[in-house]
């Protein structure tokens, strides 16, 4: 796709109705979808959105539920948890609690987007603009996706994974495979090297190298576990005290895959598959606000552009705006419908305000964003989309105006106090701390406990010790023991997890639990 940004004429000045609307009814046909897509694509090109080719798939509501329950993987291995997800989705849908309407879009090349047949034509157009041009350009442009995922290989890899898991089920039984998958899923969020760029996923490569791995892996592990210690090792106190691994490891699944003593080759391969999927979802978990905000900003902007060109009529816009405002509705903290900050609202507000800061900056904007105020808005938005994740995006671009509009405030909850404290609100002294706090809220390592592999007792009982570093004394949740049991299942020997705050162990978990006699 061409890189040149073909700037549209100032859309505000153009007369609506200059052309004939594409359609007036609300029933869709394949021809109409194609026409809308062509026009939306033309608008997207005017704004310089660079996308993968699109594959739009029209599906039924039931198929949409299938797609929902496989957590966005168009091809997935079989697992009970997806069945649970499906039952949940079906229940919600049948009760009418949940609109299935929107979008499922797969980060693949071509980019697959699902349209539900029940949707009206304006809804289909909204989803096309949102998913096929909004999300799609984000997938292609954002640095996290560029670094962590290979859109052209993911479908093949998923097929490889499904076949491999099915093969294992045939050979080792459904139960044995399910056990391993359960344990891997419990650790899926800990299957990523956050600071290292992973090698790209490739199904062909995987299949080719799988054989190779099978042969060499076991030898590697045997080397590690060679049990006869050399005498001079024991004489050297420094060597004896050296931990394994020498540096703490944050990628628990990787460590287990490579070092667990008792796992069979196929079990290691399954760990690897779950790890790779964790890696595939990793960018999405860190860019929810940006990704949804970007897609929402563009469906809004593209469809307004269509209106300015006279390609859609007032009735279309009314229906579209109604859906749009439902999407970006943010219930206040004291509403019964409040369930945290709506990422669509936050992201849409920031991108919209960013454009405003570029186009019609105020004194405040010039003070806060001297480099951006008055700059080319398209370039600035594209820059923001490409080079940030939620945490840094908020830190960089959340403006005082958005904080005021959303009436943001921060509350501290300290278990050592008998009251909550309001620590910052949307006012002059509050803007910077508020922005910092909100940014931190989207930092994965703040959202999820920091747990790393600390040590393996290589010469002794082979036990594995994990270490949790609490932030602000926040302890681990009630699932912890259960997860440690899963780690134990994978590791095969004793597993310890200790929370170490400032050098002191404040909490311990063990599997199996220590027997009282040992005390």
């Amino acid at each position, binding site marked *: 796709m061409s890189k040149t940004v073909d700037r549209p004429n100032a859309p505000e000045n153009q007369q609506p109705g200059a052309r004939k609307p594409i359609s007036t009814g609300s029933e869709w046909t394949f021809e109409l979808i194609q026409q809308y897509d062509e026009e939306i694509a033309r608008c997207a090109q005017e704004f310089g959105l660079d996308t993968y080719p699109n594959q739009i798939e029209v599906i039924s509501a039931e198929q949409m539920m299938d797609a929902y329950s496989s957590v966005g993987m168009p091809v997935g291995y079989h697992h009970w948890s997806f*069945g649970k997800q499906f039952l949940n989705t079906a229940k919600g849908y049948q009760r009418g609690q949940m609109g299935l309407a929107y979008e499922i879009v797969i980060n693949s090349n071509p980019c697959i987007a699902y349209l539900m047949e029940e949707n009206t034509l304006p809804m289909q157009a909204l989803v096309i603009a949102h998913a096929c041009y909004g999300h799609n350009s984000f997938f292609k442009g954002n640095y996290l996706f560029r670094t962590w995922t290979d859109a052209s290989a993911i479908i093949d890899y998923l097929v490889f994974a499904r076949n491999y898991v099915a093969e294992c089920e045939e050979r080792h039984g459904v139960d044995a495979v399910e056990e391993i998958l359960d344990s891997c899923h419990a650790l899926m969020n800990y299957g990523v090297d956050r600071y290292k760029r992973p090698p790209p996923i490739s199904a062909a490569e995987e299949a080719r190298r799988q054989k190779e791995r099978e042969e060499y892996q076991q030898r590697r592990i045997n080397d590690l576990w060679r049990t006869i210690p050399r005498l001079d090792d024991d004489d050297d106190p420094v060597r004896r005290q050296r931990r394994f691994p020498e540096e703490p490891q944050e990628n628990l699944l990787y460590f287990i895959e490579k070092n667990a003593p008792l796992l069979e080759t196929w079990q290691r391969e399954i760990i690897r598959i779950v790890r790779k999927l964790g890696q595939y979802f990793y960018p999405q978990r860190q860019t929810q606000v940006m990704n949804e905000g970007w897609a929402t900003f563009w469906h809004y902007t593209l469809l307004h552009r269509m209106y300015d060109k006279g390609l859609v009529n007032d009735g279309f816009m009314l229906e579209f705006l109604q859906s749009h405002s439902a999407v970006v509705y943010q219930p206040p903290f004291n509403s019964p419908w409040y369930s945290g900050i709506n990422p669509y609202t936050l992201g849409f507000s920031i991108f919209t305000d960013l454009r405003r800061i570029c186009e019609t900056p105020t004194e405040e904007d010039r003070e806060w964003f001297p480099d951006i105020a008055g700059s080319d808005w398209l370039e600035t938005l594209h820059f923001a989309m490409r080079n940030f994740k939620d945490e840094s995006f908020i830190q960089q671009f959340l403006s005082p105006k958005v904080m005021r509009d959303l009436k943001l405030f921060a509350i501290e909850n300290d278990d050592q106090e008998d009251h909550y404290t309001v620590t910052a609100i949307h006012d002059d002294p509050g803007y910077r701390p508020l922005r910092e706090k909100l940014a931190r809220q989207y930092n994965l390592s703040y959202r*999820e406990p920091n747990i790393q592999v600390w040590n393996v007792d290589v010469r002794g009982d082979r036990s594995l010790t994990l270490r949790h570093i609490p932030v602000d004394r926040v302890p681990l949740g009630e699932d912890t023991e259960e997860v440690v049991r899963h780690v134990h299942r994978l590791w095969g020997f004793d597993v310890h997890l200790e929370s170490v705050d400032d050098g002191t162990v404040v909490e311990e978990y063990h599997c199996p639990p220590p027997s009282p006699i040992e005390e």
Partner: protein
Amino acid sequence: MGMTHIVDRRLNGKNKSAVNRERFLRRYRHHIKKAVADAVHKRSITDVERGEKVSIPTRDIDEPIFHHGQGGRREMVHPGNQEFVAGDMIPKPQGGGGQGGGQGQASPDGEGMDEFAFQITQEEFLDFLFDDLELPNLARKKLKDTEAFKYVRAGFTNQGVPAKLDVVRSLRGAHARRLGLGGARKKKIRDLEKQLQALKSAPEDLDPAFSHDDQIKVLEDEIARLKANVRRIPFIDEIDLRYRQHVKQPKPATSAVMFCLMDVSGSMTQMHKDIAKRFFILLYLFLKKNYKKIDVVFIRHHTSAKEVDEEEFFYSRETGGTIVSSAIKLMHKIIESRYSPSEWNIYAAQASDGDNWNDDSPVCGKLLADSILPLVQYYAYVEITPQDHQMLWYEYEKILERFPQSFAMQQIADPGEIYPVFRQLFERKAA
């Protein structure tokens, strides 16, 4: 542009999640089985053929992950401030942990309910209901099934046994043959007879050399010869015979008949009948899963037995004494006239409160042993009474000793026991 590919996937299979759903049900089969068992003895009878709502405690179903717990110091940013200013302190509600934190760590299903509820289909309901149950002798009957044949008509053949002779078709064949063989000669005979007639009625020629007598003689001889010829064509020949052709086709015995025998004498209360009814329904549902076609025969009895429809069977009342053998005799009669054991898998369930004329009980035993049990797959007797057994029970115990494979008996005191007893009666027996 033109890079977009639009695909209609609606005709592709839905139910991509079927396997995952099945995996889910499999994993939680213990929970589901319990829900199904509860449902069976709570539900009314007309109601057994539908799905069921199953609830599983959320904690049993959670997928654990590492996450933050309550406690420590946490800060959260929220929208929609109204009157707060920095430094405000809000007293914590008593007794509750802080709620401000933990956003996004609650159950991803949102509602924070304690139960995960979902619907299983009727099919699944029945699968769980009959899990681990197997009708006895099913295997044996399966072997036997392959020996059951039926004959189907397959046109006609010219060889066969006299019993299969098709008379009409054979005579039609003979007629055709006779026409074929004799037709030309008969026509000649008719022509010659016409000439003969003409000669006879013609005036006599005076010249004896031209006397008609010679010609008449020639014609008459020829006619006689031809007639003899025609007479020699047989009226029916072996090649005319046509027999109905039947070929043997193996016939799977996929049909079953279920006999419900129930005592409706004065001593059977509506409660007894309700219990019996549920038992019969379980049996019916069970058979329905295993056979394509099922007939149900209802036989009620007091001092005499009668075949009735379902409505009358369960709901009309009788008074008077009890002669159980009358029902067994009627059952035998019905088998003989309508349900040949070579084509039907025969099951029987008898429900009674154990009351019988003492003289009759040995008769029942003998009837069962001699004429019923050799014909049926399985005969189950349930005695619905909390009281001591009477003569009939002891008589049946002797039968049980002799026919442990095809006879079973149990006592039921209250509705809660139906299902366990049913399971016991139809338990999968270790091979």
